[in-house]
């Protein structure tokens, strides 16, 4: 069964390591079919560049099934590409047609410094988790797993927030480079679980402080983050974080 092939033009952001800025490089690529994933299309291009003795485009991906959070591109202005609530690695070329011109840019945000081409440094997100995105319990000291029942609906809600893959799309989509959805999701998850309760006040205070000091912006409630989140994390995470923050500031002795 021979499928019809098509060709596209790519405008790809190229930025040398250590350089402050870069430029768009134009590439043409033919012989594509709809079954090819977007990243495989870039693989094909990179193989071609290598064959020509040119340096390939630096671009990151790992699991290629939408769970590791490694990949992340802005394609024609769409964070993670045109498919709703998915990652770049899940995007397939059937979303494009012959002679399309596709602009590919890295996630841009102040706290995500560029490394090379489409590769950026997102370690600031780890630093937010480090500030309190955990429950303090030592290995081997836990009571029986069924000793605290948790309402099913509440556990499901915690899971909704826990689904975050840490890809940074929310930050990249936010006009203020805010990490509210990312931070809010972790705070919401842990504060919905009874196990996370003892630390809830200190957690929200420390994580918000870390988020601010790392250079992430304020929330202007534009909900762009919610619109791009591949795991469909809702802005109720941010509201929950705000609530926790108010409580911690006014009601607690922290």
């Amino acid at each position, binding site marked *: 069964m021979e499928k019809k092939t098509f060709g596209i033009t790519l405008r790809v952001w190229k930025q040398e390591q250590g350089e402050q800025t870069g430029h768009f490089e134009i590439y043409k690529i033919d012989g594509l079919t709809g079954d*090819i994933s977007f990243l495989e299309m870039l*693989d094909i291009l990179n193989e071609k560049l290598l064959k020509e003795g040119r340096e390939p485009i630096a671009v990151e991906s790992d699991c290629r099934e939408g769970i590791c959070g490694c990949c992340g591109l802005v394609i024609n202005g769409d964070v993670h590409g045109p498919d709703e609530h998915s990652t770049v690695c899940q995007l397939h070329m059937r979303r494009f047609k012959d002679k399309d011109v596709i602009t590919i840019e890295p996630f841009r945000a102040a706290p995500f410094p560029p490394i090379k081409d489409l590769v950026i440094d997102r370690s600031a997100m780890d630093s937010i988790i480090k500030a309190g995105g955990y429950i303090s319990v030592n*290995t081997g000291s836990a009571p029986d797993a069924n000793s605290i029942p948790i309402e099913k609906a509440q556990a499901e809600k915690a899971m909704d927030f826990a689904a975050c893959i840490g890809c940074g799309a929310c930050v990249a989509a936010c006009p203020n480079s805010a990490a509210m959805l990312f931070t809010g999701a972790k705070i919401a998850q842990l504060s919905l679980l009874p196990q996370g309760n003892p630390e809830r006040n200190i957690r929200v205070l420390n994580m918000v402080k870390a988020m601010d000091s790392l250079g992430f912006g304020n929330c202007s409630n534009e909900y762009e983050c919610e619109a791009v989140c591949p795991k469909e994390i809702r802005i109720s995470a941010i509201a929950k974080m705000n609530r926790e923050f108010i409580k911690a500031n006014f009601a607690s002795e922290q």
Partner: protein
Amino acid sequence: MKLDSKIPSGNIQQKWDNYKFNAKLVNPNNRKKFDIIIVGSGLSGASAAASLGEQGYNVKLFTIPDSPRRAHSIAAQGGINAAKNYKYDGDSVYRLFYDTIKGGDYRAREANVYRLAQISNQIIDHCVATGVPFAREYGGLLANRSFGGAQVSRTFYARGQTGQQLLLGAYSQMMRQAAAGTVKIFPRREMLDIVIKDGKARGIIVRNLVTGELETYLGHAVLLCTGGYANVFYLSTNAANCNVSAAWAAYKKGAGFANPCFTQIHPTCIPRSGEHQSKLTLMSESLRNDGRVWVPKKKGDSRNPSEIPEDERDYYLERIYPAFGNLVPRDIASRAAKRMIDEGRGVGPTGQAVYLDFADAIAKQGEDKIKEKYGNLFDMYYRITDENGYKTPMRIYPAPHYTMGGLWVDYELMTTVEGLFALGEANFSDHGANRLGASALMQGLADGYFVISATLPNYLANAKFNSVSESDDEFVHARESVSSKIKKLLSIKGSKTPTEFHRELGNIMWDLCGMSRSEESLKKALKEIPKLKEEFWQNVYVPQNEKFNQTLEKALKVADFIEFAQLLVKDALERRESCGGHFREESTTKEGEAKRDDENFSFVSVWEYAGEGKEPILNKEELKFENLKPTVRSYK
């Protein structure tokens, strides 16, 4: 090579307790004086960093991606087993132990597996305490499902993202230690060599993937938590960064490599669509709880599945294995699919697939119910194939997924090199020749949270450490050898890309040493791999960039895969029996089923490196079954 498995005395129930009581401890004040190097941040690496950090050791953790949270454990979908028996359906530690040994086709070590089953319950307790949002019943207690052919419901799960939730749990515990200052994380580092001094593992050489610099780190013990090597097949369900390099470096420094031929092929993956394919995507085998697997009865039947009437379909798993039907273990299901395809009854444009049909389940339970159970998998299938699994049967094909083989370890998880430990998928210990579903997560966390934190202190307390420095000969030499390897790769300036070599290697491995293996095919592979290796070192092209260079990273991985493939095939050739994931065409029953040979092969093959260009040496650890009698694994 001396293989002392150090199995503690006592009956199987008491071995772990005996061990822990007899193990030496390290005084809390002394712990921070010990530097522990952990390579890899998946379930076992992250949990080991957390538990050792909690005890006060000085942990350094190295990981390839930008964040430790991206390790491939994150992609595990189905669940994690534990012998909690919350369902009161007859489960027990002993039954989990029995199922795991039997599922592994009697090629695992009893004492290790029993310990795993014992610890399984603590894992669930700890994970819940760390905020893992497992699925729950309306009463608020934890939910369980049956998984991968088990006859009890012992699998805990968090939707289809159990691996993710467990990894994020372990990651968060590690980040807590990072905040406490006991764990230091080094992302974007790839380990390229291990340094042995005075017979002990004392440090590693890593490449900083951003700057390209070689960095040296010293320690009192090195823990390899580097996962499996399924990417040796090029197309597998593993992530792009999964590799054998760390384990291979350990092997070359004297660590025995055990059972490399034990690889698992997962039956429910999305078939490949063409040459461009970069990886295969797995769909949870929970799909087989409701989906029915079939192929047309007629060869080369290219009709649309909806046009094939019921009586012209062959529901072959239900036909051949009436007792387990569509729920037979992975190796059985995969091989059956291969047989159908080899008979010319494969479906889809490539003929390399079988149907997984939900029509009956939808008719009985309604589409909503199916959507609720597997909605995310149907979405994933649709995204990749552009086909609606609710309306037309899914096409599936087996794909390499997990590797049971790995570095040989003793009961303490120490390899044959003193002070060098291997945890999780990187070691060989618990799954024998075939792993049961939902057991990988269990093993990763058992090793990291509970085993190593008890066995490493025993090593540290007993060992005598001389002082080491970066300028010692061993370190200088290791750095030089890595550096010259990189220089060599950069200097070849050939005409083929590392990916092309990887793809060729994958083709050799899949065709000649894949789901079924014969003496002839393996011997052929043993001829082809060295040729590929030779060509690689003469004709690979890597761009001249010593800093951030993904092609160089890939070339380093492929170089090790090619060398390792040779060992894998050799092991497959030596093991002239069929067991678990290893299927030798010469060793079958009359019906064509796998035939195990306990008389001659009830051992662990442990391969010892003999030097460049020399044949590796085969050592054997005899397997003693004192509690369970090896029986024929039948699912009919």
